[in-house]
Each structure stands twice: as C-alpha cells, then as structure tokens.
C-alpha cells in the first residue's frame, strides 16, 4: 500500500518540480526586492529623523504583529476595492517583499546601531558627507553583524512563502495539498514536502553558520 502510494507520488514529480520552482522563484524575487527595501528602511530607521523612524517602526510592528495570511488577503482581495487590481503572483510578491523588508529593516537597523559611535565620529571629523559615511564606513562594518541573521531570516521567509498558496499559487506546499487528495497519506506527502524545503533551506543554514563562526572567531568566543 505504501509502496503503491509512493509510486503514485513519484509519478507526480512534474507537479512537485513546478511547485518547487514556484517556491524558489517567489522567494528569489521577493527576497531580492525585500533586501533592497529592507536596507533602505533600516538606514532611514536609524537616520535620526524621529518622525520617519517612528512611522517605519509602527509599520514594522503592524506587519510583524499580524498573521501573514491576513496581509496576503488584504493585498489580493481588499486592494481591488481601492482600484488596485493585482494578479496572484504579483500580490504574492508584494506581500512577501513587504514582510521581508520589515524583518530585514530591523536586522539592518540593529547592525547599524552596533557600529561603534567612534567610527561615525571619525568619519564626521574627516568631513565625509552623510551618504559617504553610510556607504564607506558604517554599512561595510554593519554587514558583519547583519549577515548571519539576514541569511537566517531568508530561511524563515522562504518557509513563510508557503502562505501564498492561499491565493492560488501552486508552490511546494500547495502541491502537497493537491497530491494528498489523490494519495491520502499526510505523513508521506508532507514528509516529502519537508524534504523539498530542506533542499532549499539547508545550504542557507550552513552559510549562516559559517558566517556566524567567522564573526565569532574574529570576536574571540568565550570558552566554557
């Protein structure tokens, strides 16, 4: 019986590949956009403009505090009432990009705040402009702090991308739901879905680990 189900599953590999492809494409696009946007927001968040920083903070809280599913619903089903008509893919990208940007914004802000104030003062004292200070002095140093949690966050976001199946995109998770209708074995089907995500996410986790270790070595970890 299991074997027969397994064969039946194996037969669904084109669907599974399509799902995996959708997950990867969605994640790639929205993570790339989200990273850009997140860095921009993070820089503004620490930029010293109280009002702007407050507004960004409130938006980040709102996004972090509500279920992603609800955000997707709002973008896909409610925005049309305000004349913004989006197809499922675009809506998914926008929702995921926004989510990514909000998380990355906080990571970047934390990284920027971790750069010693003396570095900024040194740059200030040698007459570098605001953008030059950010670009030449602060960001390169913040990156060391930012990179490991950033990559870790990517993994979480890739997994969060499964929620977009609720608006009809056939990603890896949705393929699981489709296939389980024909092969009613939740354990087997979702185990394989898990394997699919593992293949995408594990290399990223390894990367995050390595980045972390490189930073740790540079900072002299405590030995117990």
């Amino acid at each position, binding site marked *: 019986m299991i074997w027969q189900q397994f064969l039946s599953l194996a037969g669904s590999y084109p669907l599974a590949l399509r799902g995996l492809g959708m997950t990867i494409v969605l994640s790639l696009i929205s993570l790339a956009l989200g990273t850009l946007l997140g860095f921009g927001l993070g820089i503004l968040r620490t930029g010293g403009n109280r009002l702007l920083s407050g507004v960004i903070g409130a938006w980040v809280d709102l996004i972090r505090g509500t279920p992603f599913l609800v955000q997707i619903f709002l973008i896909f089903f409610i925005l049309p009432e305000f004349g913004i008509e989006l197809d499922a893919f675009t809506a998914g990208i926008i929702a995921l990009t926004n989510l990514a940007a909000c998380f990355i914004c906080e990571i970047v802000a934390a990284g920027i705040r971790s750069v*010693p104030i*003396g*570095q900024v*003062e*040194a*740059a*200030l*004292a*040698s*007459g*570098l*402009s605001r953008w*030059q200070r950010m670009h*030449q*002095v602060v960001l*390169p*140093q913040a990156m060391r702090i930012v990179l490991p949690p950033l990559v870790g966050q990517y993994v979480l976001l890739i997994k969060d991308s499964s929620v977009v199946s609720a608006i009809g995109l056939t990603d890896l998770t949705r393929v699981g739901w489709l296939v389980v209708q024909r092969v009613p074995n939740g354990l087997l089907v979702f185990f394989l879905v898990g394997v699919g995500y593992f293949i995408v996410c594990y290399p990223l986790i390894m990367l995050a680990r390595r980045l972390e270790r490189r930073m740790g070595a540079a900072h002299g970890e405590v030995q117990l």
Partner: protein
Amino acid sequence: MTQPGLTKTGMIDFRGVNKWFGALNVLRDITLSVEPREVVVVCGPSGSGKSTLIRCINGLETIKDGHLIVDGQRVGDPATNMTQLRTEIGFVFQSFNLYPHKTALENVTLAPIHVRKIPRAEAEQAGRVLLAKVGLADKVNAYPAQLSGGQQQRVAIARCLGMRPKIMLFDEPTSALDPEMISEVLDVMVAVAEEGMTMMVVTHEMGFARKVAQRVVFMDAGAIVESGTPDEFFSHPKTDRSRAFLSKILRH
C-alpha cells in the same frame, strides 16, 4: 585667568561658551583663544569637560550659548558649512577609531579621495609619503587589527594629516597605549607641532607639554581654572585644585 583678549580673533576662539548635558553644566563660560601655530595642552581630572571642549571645535558636540569661532567661521551657525569646516580640522581619538575594514593606506586616502576629490593615484602617492613620515612605510597594506595600538594611532594621525588640515585636535591620544608605544606616538606629534600646526591636545603626558606646548590649560568641573606656560603651570600651580591634580599624576 589669563585668556588672551576678546577682541582679536585667534584660530580657535571660545567666547563665553556654555554647554549642558541635561542638567549638567559640562562647559562653564569658557573663554579661550588659540593663535595660529600655537600648541595648547589641556589637562584636568576625569569628567572635567576636556573632551567636550575640543569636540565642540569641530561640531561633534553642539554648544548651548556663547560663540565659538574657528578659522573665522562661527561653529553651529546655519550659515557655516560644517562639513567644509571639518575638512580643515583633524581629530585624533583616544581609541584611534581607524576603519577596521580598510587598510592603513585606505584609511589615509578615504577622505582625500571622497571629500577633497583628489584623484586616487595622487592620493595614494601622498598617503604613502605620510605613512612613511609616521614610520609606517612597511605597514601600508596592513589592516588595523594587524597593527599594535601605537601603530594604529600613528595611522590615525596620518589620516588626519592627509586632509592637510589647519588645526589638529588630540583627545588623549596615548592613554589607550602600552607604555613602550607611547613615545612613538608622541614623537610623531612633536614632529607635527614643529612643522607649525595649530594644535589642541588633551593629554597627561607632561613631557610632551613641556617640550612643545606654548600653553597648558587646566580644567576642573567644566571651567578653565588655570592657564599658563608649561613651566609656570608645573612649577608653580596657582590653585589648590591644580596642585592636588598634579600631585596625583606626577607621583608615580
């Protein structure tokens, strides 16, 4: 008190400057003028406002009232281009504050290239000369983490000189250093002073003060308590506070 007259304008000119941190009056009615090519040493107990004093000069701190005129421009005045003014002022920090992700040469050339818009090749040429001058010709491509404290501080000085400033400010440049490295930094500072730079130096290195300073300024609790030539100050301190201070730092 022996501040120079209020009428003529020095290179750095404090006139009745006050600064508060919250309720704390960290600079009290500071009046002090530094002439071109003059070297002034500032000393005083911890928390007396020495750092705050010199940080005001290039606008790292803002002042509450009074006037501060640097190189003929009023600091904090909206009409003053502070970024521009800062390029005329070099600042050396106690903790070096080298950019850890740049080599010694890159540290020295960063501002000349991006602020002064000097062509890279020319800036690097000048940077090498400067690094050689502070005795680090062989460390051009080393990163700060690969340098000793004394070497880092010498790079930091070269970094300031790279901008060809009119004024150099030093905030306890040797107090984070191992004793044997102090002299290598002081030697460089002496050389800079002897070339005629206008300098304000917060330091407790009395040997340095004796050697190059025209004036020593003693601060306590935010005010300038005493000021005079090094000989006057070290041999005949006028106030109890300066005597107590000198006895502490000269004893060991």
